[in-house]
């Protein structure tokens, strides 16, 4: 018994010392990075859904501001529809809810290279709803050449490719500012409080009133950032609503089934007079 106590108290002491050390280190690390402000997104939580109006406004911000430099290569124009037509036959998928005519018109604004035709020539034609989003640059090298050597990343998965992506991108879009005194900003870079290292190649994209919303919403910088993050969150995870809906059904079924198994287990165990 005494040995046991000696061992456990020695062990406890060692772990407590280690834990204390780790906490000190953690505190030091957290001082350096400003914690990310959490936004109240409509798609958070078990019943979260996308906000259709925000998706449409967000698409407008993407199209008129972000798309100048950023591609969205995993999406097709047809995805901009509502329930139907996202993935063929999958009615549960959801999108911004543009009508078929609107989608055709949006697609037709872009040119895609197609061919060869029956003369063996490549040709340009207006994009169709089935085409992928046409990017701003022909290739990565063209994108770098136009952007001071930096490659603007594709935005299809941006929200999922960063920790707390929605909050992070919102902070990134709204936390541009002047570098504090003593901060060495490299030529051609911009100061951003949310970006790791605070130096970002992308100039401030949103200033407020960058777009004129069709639904009359006032285009403040916060509103624009909020809307475009909604849109990008949907672009990264278009099946979120279907997932949330199916999840409730599956969990309801499983909870009832497991309850029945429990009752059955109790009844059968009673035969033994054990439990």
């Amino acid at each position, binding site marked *: 018994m005494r*040995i046991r106590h000696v061992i456990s108290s020695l062990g406890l002491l060692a772990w407590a010392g*280690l834990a204390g050390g780790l906490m000190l280190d953690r505190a030091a690390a957290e001082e350096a990075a400003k914690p990310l402000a959490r936004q109240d997104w409509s798609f958070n939580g078990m019943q979260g859904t996308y906000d259709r109006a925000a998706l449409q406004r967000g698409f407008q911000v993407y199209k008129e501001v972000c798309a100048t430099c950023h591609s969205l290569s995993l999406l097709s124009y047809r995805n901009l529809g509502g329930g139907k037509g996202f993935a063929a036959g999958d009615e549960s998928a959801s999108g911004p809810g543009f009508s078929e005519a609107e989608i055709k018109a949006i697609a037709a604004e872009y040119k895609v290279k197609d061919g060869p035709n029956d003369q063996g020539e490549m040709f340009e034609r207006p994009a169709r709803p089935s085409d992928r989003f046409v990017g701003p640059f022909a290739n990565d090298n063209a994108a770098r050449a136009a952007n001071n050597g930096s490659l603007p990343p594709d935005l299809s998965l941006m929200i999922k490719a960063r920790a707390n992506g929605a909050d992070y991108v919102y902070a990134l879009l709204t936390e541009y500012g002047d570098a504090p005194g003593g901060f060495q900003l490299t030529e051609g870079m911009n100061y951003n409080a949310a970006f790791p290292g605070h130096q970002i190649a992308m100039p401030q994209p949103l200033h407020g009133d960058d777009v004129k919303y069709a639904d009359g919403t006032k285009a403040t910088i916060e509103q624009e950032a909020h809307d475009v993050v909604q849109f990008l969150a949907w672009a990264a995870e278009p099946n979120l609503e279907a997932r949330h809906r199916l999840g409730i059904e599956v969990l309801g079924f*499983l909870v009832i089934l497991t309850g029945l198994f429990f009752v*059955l287990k109790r009844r059968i165990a009673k035969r*033994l*007079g054990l439990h």
Partner: protein
Amino acid sequence: MSTHNSPNSDPQASQSQAGKTNLRNYGLVRWIDYRLPFVGFIEKDLIGYPEPKNLNYWWSFGSLAGITLLVMILSGIFLAMHYIPNTEMAFNSVESIMRDVNGGWLIRYIHMNGASLFFLVVYIHIFRGIYYGSYKSPRELLWIIGVVILLLMMATAFLGYVLPWGQMSFWGATVITNLFSAIPVIGTPITTWLWGGFGVGNPTLNRFFALHYLLPFVIIGVAMLHLLALRTHGSNNPLGIEVRSKADTIPFHPYYTVKDLFSLGVFAIVFAVLVFYMPNALGEPDNYKPANPLITPAHIVPEWYLLPFYAILRSIPSKLGGVLAMGGAIFMLFILPWLDRSRVRSCTFRPIYKVLFWVFVVDCLLLGYLGAKPPEGWYLIGSRLAAAWYFIHFLILTPLVGWFETPKPLPVSISLPVLPSTALPQEKH
């Protein structure tokens, strides 16, 4: 397998001893069973199989592991129908599964999170085995086959993690395959041979896909051996004493089938919460960036279930030393049946080893935490201490405690505890 299939046993004869629900009342079943004792196997090895009557819920994790393996294989086969193992197309083919394949997101999230849950279940299964001394004679080979399954699982999980060809896939593959270059003299040629080139590239991805499809079936085979070894001496139990008589056992069906079904229900709820409400919580956001050999991620970390071993690897300042320590960590599990000198199996009767067990659990969790942190400052000191404790636990404390610990008195049998006054109610049937 069955007593009914000996040559001089008339298939008709079995009818007389059959109950009213006996399948052998059906002519076709009787005909088949005489030639291929399938029903006999089910009766003897599943329905009537005697199990110790005192198994607790920690014994459910074995069957959960088997079921998770099947879920992984089934979901994996459907993913393989849409996946393209080519460095140019792999990332987008996974995204196409997520976006364009009907129900593809569900299958992929099941497969992704199923891997994590498979490890969780198997780790609990292993810790249960350590706590109740399930590795001791005569179950040493059962235990060793289990450790082989763990190794195969790690290999399979690593190969699978490379397939989506995201940043973590690529850099994880680079780090892990480079470990082989630590081997003196032949290390570099071996690494080149593994890659199929002079770096992680298309040939690597292609062979990783082939092997990732193969290994789960190897796991099935080894799991069959695991079951065969289990059936030879039967399950251990929370008291860690052998079954002495029929009074100590109950038939597997219905008692443990229904108990395992309940456990399966609880497990499925946890699984569903992960898949439907936090499908990316256990993954790295970096793996949603396409692989880029020119940009190294800030922190290259493996999936959570490999973090303790990763922490041990990084705690040694030399590459070869780190690789040896990591291999040694698994090797400890292989030799555990001979490191533990105590004749008492269950920690219920081992006051000191029980404390050490829980310290060891905390140590493994701490290693996991530290494996996710950058190897510097306190984190590095912490992982060195924790890694040292890991080996001290196995190599020094486990053998020593076996010598000087005085175990509590063992019960006479599962049905008869030490003192009659605290006797469990007698079995009715």
